[in-house]
């Protein structure tokens, strides 16, 4: 398997480094100071392949905090805020687009046994 760092990095717009947190798998983003955050807004933006590669290299080394780091596209919305750059990243950031079953079920159902 080719390491992400050995792959040719091509970017066509702003990107961040994202991964899943080791302890619980939650979606996290790499901050400029080398910490991880679950808030996309706080992620470090890279605008060039060189910058993205550097961020990814540092992130990949820190696998005790987060695993599976990769480069994800973002877009800068009209309000200047950062948004996920595609549907997959939107779902990772915001959760499933469908209601989860448990939210539909009440905790006490009167089951006529």
């Amino acid at each position, binding site marked *: 398997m080719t390491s992400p760092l050995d792959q040719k990095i091509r970017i066509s717009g702003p990107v961040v480094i994202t991964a899943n947190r080791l*302890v619980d798998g939650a979606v996290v983003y790499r901050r400029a100071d080398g910490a991880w955050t679950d808030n996309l807004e706080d992620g470090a933006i890279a605008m060039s392949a060189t910058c993205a590669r550097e961020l990814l290299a540092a992130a990949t080394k820190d696998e005790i905090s987060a*695993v599976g780091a990769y480069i994800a596209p973002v877009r800068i919305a009209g309000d200047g805020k950062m948004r996920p750059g595609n549907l997959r990243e939107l779902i990772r950031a915001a959760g499933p687009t469908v209601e*989860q*079953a448990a939210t539909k*079920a009440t905790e006490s159902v009167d*089951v006529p046994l």
Partner: protein
Amino acid sequence: MYLYDELDRTLIAERVGEFRDQIARRLAGELTEEEFKPLRLMNGVYLQLHAYMLRIAIPYGTLSSAQLRMLAHVARHYDRGFGHFTTRQNIQFHWIKLKELPDAMAELASVGLHGMQTSGNNVRNITTDQWAGVAPDEIEDPRIWAELIRQHVTLHPEFSFMPRKFKIAVGAAAQDRAALRIHDLALRLHRNGKGETGFEVMVGGGLGRTPYLAQTIKPFLRKRDVLSYIEAVLRTYNQFGRRDNIWKARIKILVHDLGAEAFAKEVEAEWQSIKDGALALDPAVIAEMAARFRYPDYAPLDESPPALADARRADRRFDAWMSNAVAKHKIPGYAIVTLSLKPEAGTPGDCTAVQMEAIADLADRYSFGEIRVGHEQNMVLPHVAKRDLPRVWRALDAIGVATPNVGLVSDIISCPGLDYCSLANARSIPVAQEISRRFRKPELARELGRLHINISGCINACGHHHVGHIGILGVEKNDQEFYQITLGGKADDDAKLGTLIGPAVPYAQVADAVETIVTAYLELRERPDELFVDTVKRTGIEPFKERLYAAH
């Protein structure tokens, strides 16, 4: 139910202990992710989009009420209050935390549940007919054979690092309810001309990027030879299967490339050298395994209780459910009840902790403590006295699992898709939900008759789209979701892969496309009882294609 012995319990408990240690070492940084990943996968732990996912095997789809209650407990305490039943008689929890996994697994182990071999290149959970042991058209209970094979291949070192995963299914009824021909290896118990029972052995089935139906390589295998023959198949695959290309590594590619006949010859040569050795099954071993499956102490009951007929006359909803979800049991006075996990606009296969607990209670009270799970992502109460059906229906209706849509248009098989899965290219669940909304009227669904819609969010085909009467495959083009539609597939004893109807349609048009196809069927069918899939077989896809692409 199969009764676990001390060996089963020890093996599972030891595995939990090992995994607890491995997780602790990973969290402490003593194991790298590269070292840890194969270890977690061996225990059914994947990393998905939002969290870790834990896949638990439900061998041959049989659960005790205690096991289902434990699944509810894990859903509530370690996850988000629900679980997702899959197309392989497994359950998945989508929001598990790595640090809590050892405790969750220890609790599951206390009732004999585990995630071993629900991932990795080994023999996966062995599946069968969810009506095993109770179906009137069955020769004998296929679970005895599934369990014998399960025990043989569990942690078998020779079969723990195969070229790819290996899925086995066993069937023993006239009607195939286990989708046998889409498996790497399938066994079908049948009687030969002399009246002896034995197995038809099929190999090389599988969906995914290159779908094939399994081909018969041995029409009749004696029961004593089941383990040795499977071992010969697995060895042949281990030796010749490709390891250089993940897309060509499944046994289906090997069988296709060699040809079924040449593959069978290789198996036969290997088998001749081992068939009379330690794996030849002594009748006493088979009898001992059969004795470990306990059957309920059925009471002599009236096959047609008058109160049931009265209840059907009195309540049209109950009557509709009876016609749809209740099937004949092999014992007079009892029925097989299917619980639909496909409510209108729901997530196919999802079940909440509250529902699981209620179903476990109902199983204790009305189904001898036993529950089944089928590959269509529904559940079953396998032994309900017919006189109890009105009460059982009221309870199932109260928890939302009595939608009378079993086998109908809104009984959709769907993988989790891009809402959860890291492999997916497109969403599956919201597509299923929109289709189920469009066809929510029970009269319309009944008018359409048996119609299976299967949806996968990527080419790996966990949603079995190739064998859906209408198959829907999500693909991604330029960051947009598109869906390819196939018609005419089926997974029964006359299995067939569907035919692609034409160019993919965008996300927003999938439900419209399905409506157009279904409307075309209503116009094209020759008789009201000509099923959708039979109309497609008779007419081909052209008339559907004309209407679909004229409309869109």
